[in-house]
């Protein structure tokens, strides 16, 4: 059984007991435990079920590479699936549930898949479930989805109770990994004066060294780690962060750190995770190495564990997965596990070393402890189902004929070590195959390249393939110096700290155990524990022609589990290479992609959620609208009132009321969101003549002109009223969404094409509040304001005619008044300083009471303009419409040699007389045409689609006219007045509409001109 040991446990505090639950069962652990070590202490060997066969799964590793021990953690709005028990620090009240089983972990109905394993081999689903067709959607797929998927989804209605944040950091040298190599590299770099950031994913420093032993500068590694940490903490130019994983390396020295602030103490306040967005001149990846499993039959049975992880559990947390351990290895390191387990009082039944000549001094040490070591031997098969019960032993160089069976309840395996090259590889760093250590390590000649074309990542220590303590420290010394140098500092060149550790014999590459295992064994030999990929699956893929390592990965799902192949990839591609008769480096690896280890979506999103999801732009009158019934409509990042709804009124009623009142009495529109660009300079007129299709240079100061803007491609992109302010100043109005876009458009042309023209453009949109005062009583209310203020600008027809503007005072406010109208009514648009906006609005509302004033929203604005047949950018235009389509030829200057879009308009399709053109549309029965409906012509096109001859661009109910009105683009429309065409609705009805003039209301335009 797995238990807590009487001694050991350098990371736990036995005086602090902690209670937690697993699958509802109360358990106890100690402060400093991980959930994984605490589960082992409670003899909870089985922790989950595999993805495909639902086989029992136990802990196999002690770090983030763990593929099996994934649990659901927490409850309610803090529930999260797929949390690694190995990286979850134990806290009081922790509640964990195992995953991927029904009804229980111990008894799982879908374990039947395991019995069917012989049928459910790699890629079986590509070959089955083909007939009959409907069954895939309705039967097969739902079953497959339900049986896959690991953890359960968080509650669909709950919002994450935690918060997250982003954090920026700039470093000369970023060191990722706080083991002895990372510490040394950071120290060397820091001593040069470089600003250093050192990240460690765990809540403890030193990596493996304190567990693995040896001495550094005559000290135990743990003591050296403490000493070095103290030194680093004392340096102002060093920032240290534990519980912070280097998650990804991106171009130009960008890196992500993923700091888990409160996962170990939920509810303590503050953000749960912090995403570090780091820019570093140089990055040192001191990310260590990960041990590889050995491929033998039954290597997935709970109780089979990586040798170094078993040692970690015993030394760090004082727990053991079993009482009788068999160690299988192809290298010397696993002997440390034998020594550690023996020292912890666990019986080591046997050490099986695949090498005929065995190991070095560590082996001798093990033998001296009285442990039986057998060389050239291997595991034929592990016995057991929900946990190990015994081991059959055979010769490594055979087919698996068992020579002996021993009782055991745990197996420690070591297939060698793979440097953690993920971060090196994320941004294009290349690897080389190290034959001696049978692993891929960073190729120092081909690092990821930064903005200057030079490498910006340096691997250090075990992550660089360094073997042994002394080598790792020496490598780290060199890496620290190189990083400081490359970052522009002068490191003090010195010797790495002296380290001593036992000499080790060469390892032996072992990809299959025993070497000639037969098919029955290979079908029980796991490569990917979570995804249930076996040696036989990879061999099948190779036989079927999936020769590329990417094909094999995708066909078998090898390495696609949540550990992304940290344990399985090298073993799998070695099997593939062997099957293809090829060399491992020729087969190559799959691509390493960020993140190194999964990071929360919450952290990626950061603070931006809810109300601050995106910036909200508010006009000065925003709060007034909000407290007066505004039904908000998002327009870009602005919010504008769609209508002001009174109590007891529907939205539709409100719109109709506003429309009617504005025509009959007086309406106020907050037009502040309209873009306002000041264009100024000696060449401003010339410039605007290029920007607008019509002539702006001839506009007289004091006057306004409606202008159109096209892209160079000829399409209408914006419109608005332009006012000439003085000899070299114009003010251009844009659409609400257009201010920034058009400002950018103007700057682009000014800076990149006509850079010698003397023009400045300033976006003054937010400096001004603008109110449209609209309706028959518009002048009256403004004059009343002036009256109350004891005078003001003359707003009479004579003093301020239509399409002119004046500066002056209105009601005591400094104002600019434009006589322009987007409604066909008598209308003034009045701009005041943004800071006066609310006061001016309020004054208008008060003064307007006797004239029947009402505010109106965007929908009323739309209807008023549609009644007048005015186009709206975004309705009548959609990026494919040119001014000619809208009957706006009058606004295309004939006098100008050039303007943006002019050349484009002469292309054949744009000059085509068959282009659809703008007309008014009236349903025969007065109903409202459906939004976006198309008019049908005769027959179908070459692709069998119904031929269309037009479409609705705007359609509204006009309360003034008591009927539906619409505009649309119709083929040959203007010459077909009076014709009735048909618009099929999506409701099955055919809407008949007559082609009419697009001006529905006050055709003579008398109302605006009073």
């Amino acid at each position, binding site marked *: 059984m797995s238990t807590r040991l009487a001694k050991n446990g350098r990371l736990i505090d036995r005086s602090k007991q902690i209670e937690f639950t697993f699958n509802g069962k109360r358990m106890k652990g100690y402060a400093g435990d991980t959930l994984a070590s605490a589960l082992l202490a409670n003899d909870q060997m089985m922790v989950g079920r595999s993805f495909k066969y639902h086989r029992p799964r136990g802990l196999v590793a002690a770090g983030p590479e763990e593929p099996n021990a994934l649990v659901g953690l927490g409850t309610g709005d803090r529930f999260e699936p797929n949390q690694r028990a190995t990286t979850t620090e134990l806290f009081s009240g922790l509640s964990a549930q195992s995953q991927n089983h029904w009804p229980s972990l111990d008894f799982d109905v879908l374990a039947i898949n395991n019995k069917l394993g012989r049928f459910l081999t790699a890629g079986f689903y590509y070959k089955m479930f083909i007939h009959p067709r409907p069954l895939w959607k309705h039967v097969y797929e739902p079953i497959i989805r339900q049986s896959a998927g690991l953890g359960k989804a968080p509650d669909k209605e709950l919002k994450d109770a935690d918060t997250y944040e982003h954090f920026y950091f700039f470093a000369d040298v970023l060191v990722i990994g706080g083991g002895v190599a990372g510490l040394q590299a950071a120290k060397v770099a820091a001593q040069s004066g470089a600003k250093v950031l050192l990240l460690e994913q765990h809540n403890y420093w030193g990596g493996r060294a304190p567990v693995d032993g040896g001495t550094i500068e005559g000290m135990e590694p743990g003591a050296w780690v403490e000493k070095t940490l103290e030194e680093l903490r004392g340096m102002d130019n060093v920032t240290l962060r534990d519980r912070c994983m280097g998650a990804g390396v991106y171009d130009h020295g*960008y890196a992500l750190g993923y700091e888990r602030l409160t996962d170990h103490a939920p509810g303590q306040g503050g953000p749960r995770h912090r995403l570090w967005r780091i820019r570093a001149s140089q990055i040192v990846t001191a990310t260590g190495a990960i041990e590889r499993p050995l491929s033998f039959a039954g290597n997935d049975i709970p109780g089979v564990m990586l040798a170094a992880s078993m040692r970690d559990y015993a030394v760090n947390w004082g727990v053991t997965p079993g009482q009788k351990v068999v160690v299988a290895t192809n290298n010397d390191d696993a002997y440390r596990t034998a020594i550690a387990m023996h020292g912890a009082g666990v019986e080591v039944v046997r050490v099986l070393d695949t090498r005929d000549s065995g190991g070095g001094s560590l082996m001798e040490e093990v033998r001296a402890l009285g442990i039986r070591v057998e060389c050239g031997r291997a595991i034929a098969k592990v016995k057991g189902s929900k946990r190990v019960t015994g081991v059959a032993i055979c010769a490594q160089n055979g087919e698996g004929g068992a020579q002996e069976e021993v009782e055991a309840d745990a197996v420690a395996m070591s297939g060698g070590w793979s440097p953690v090259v993920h971060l090196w590889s994320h941004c294009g760093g290349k690897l080389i195959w190290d034959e001696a250590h049978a692993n891929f390590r960073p190729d120092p000649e081909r690092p990821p*390249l930064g903005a200057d074309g030079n490498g910006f990542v340096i691997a250090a220590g075990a992550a660089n393939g360094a073997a042994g303590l002394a080598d790792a420290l020496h490598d780290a010394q060199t890496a620290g110096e190189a990083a400081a140098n490359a970052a522009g500092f002068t490191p003090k060149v010195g010797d790495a700290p002296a380290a001593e550790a036992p000499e080790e014999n060469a390892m032996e590459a072992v990809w299959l155990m025993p070497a000639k295992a037969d098919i029955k064994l290979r079908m029980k030999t796991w490569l990917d524990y979570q995804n249930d990929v076996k040696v036989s699956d990879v061999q099948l893929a190779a036989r079927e022609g999936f020769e590329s390592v990417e094909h094999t990965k995708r066909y078998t799902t090898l390495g696609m589990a949540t550990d992304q192949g940290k344990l399985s990839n090298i073993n799998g591609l070695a099997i593939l290479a062997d099957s293809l008769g090829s060399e491992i480096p020729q087969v190559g690896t799959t691509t390493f992609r960020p993140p190194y280890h999964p990071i929360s979506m919450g952290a990626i999103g950061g603070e931006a959620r809810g109300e601050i999801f995106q910036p909200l732009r508010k006009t000065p009158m925003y709060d007034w609208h909000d407290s007066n019934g505004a039904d908000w409509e998002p327009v870009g990042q602005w919010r504008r009132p769609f209508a002001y709804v009174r109590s007891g009124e529907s939205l539709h009623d409100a719109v109709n009321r506003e429309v009617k009142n504005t025509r009959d009495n007086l309406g106020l529109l907050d037009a502040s969101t309209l873009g306002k660009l000041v264009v100024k300079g000696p060449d401003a007129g010339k410039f605007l003549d290029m920007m607008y299709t019509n002539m702006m240079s001839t506009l007289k100061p004091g006057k306004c002109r409606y202008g159109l803007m096209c892209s160079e*491609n000829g399409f209408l992109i914006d419109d608005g009223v332009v006012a000439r302010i003085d000899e070299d100043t114009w003010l251009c109005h844009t659409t609400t969404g257009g201010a920034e876009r058009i400002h*950018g458009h103007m700057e682009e042309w000014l*800076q*990149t094409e006509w850079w010698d023209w003397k023009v400045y453009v300033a976006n003054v949109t937010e400096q001004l509040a603008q109110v449209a005062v609209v309706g028959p009583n518009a002048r009256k209310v403004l004059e009343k304001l002036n009256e109350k203020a004891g005078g003001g600008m003359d707003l009479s027809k004579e003093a301020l005619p239509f399409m002119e503007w004046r500066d002056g005072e209105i009601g005591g406010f400094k104002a600019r008044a434009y006589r322009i109208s987007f409604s066909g009514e008598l209308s003034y648009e009045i701009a005041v300083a943004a800071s006066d906006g609310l006061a001016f609005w309020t004054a208008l509302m008060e003064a307007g009471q006797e004239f029947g004033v009402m505010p109106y929203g965007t929908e009323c604005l739309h209807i008023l303009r549609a009644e007048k047949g005015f186009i709206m950018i975004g309705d009548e235009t959609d990026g494919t419409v040119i001014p000619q389509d809208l009957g706006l030829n009058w606004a295309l200057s004939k006098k100008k*040699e050039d303007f943006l879009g*002019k*050349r484009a308009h*002469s292309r054949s399709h744009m000059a085509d007389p068959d282009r659809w053109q703008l007309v008014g549309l009236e349903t025969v029965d007065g109903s409202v045409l459906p939004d976006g409906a198309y008019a049908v012509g005769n027959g179908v096109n070459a692709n069998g689609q119904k031929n269309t001859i037009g479409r609705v661009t705007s359609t509204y109910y006009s309360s003034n006219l008591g009927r539906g009105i619409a505009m649309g683009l119709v083929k040959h429309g203007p010459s077909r007045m009076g014709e009735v065409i048909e618009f099929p609705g999506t409701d099955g009805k055919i809407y008949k509409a007559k082609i009419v003039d697009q001006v529905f209301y006050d055709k003579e335009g008398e109302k605006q001109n009073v």
Partner: protein
Amino acid sequence: MLILECPYCGVKAEETELAAGGEAHLKRFGPGSSDEEFHDYLFMRENPKGVHFERWRHANGCGKWFHAARCTMTLEVFGTYSAQTTEPPKEIQDKISEKRPNWTWRDVK
């Protein structure tokens, strides 16, 4: 995640401050140009694997447009320079030649 130094304000700008603007040194063709010229001006963009000259705007910074010489295969940046020029400055070209002796771009060599 590029960093480009804005030649106007001198800021080493994060990609999030910048807006990409496509190929640099376009020659505008307006009224009077042939269909071919106009078509190529609008649509036939250089799309090299290697050295590229392109426009950027320091949109969330000083607002200025500038040019960058960059490798599309490695994202190496050879330099940034003023947008008010019709061809890459000599020092930029020299720098590229140093690192990519056989580079070409349009008819620039």
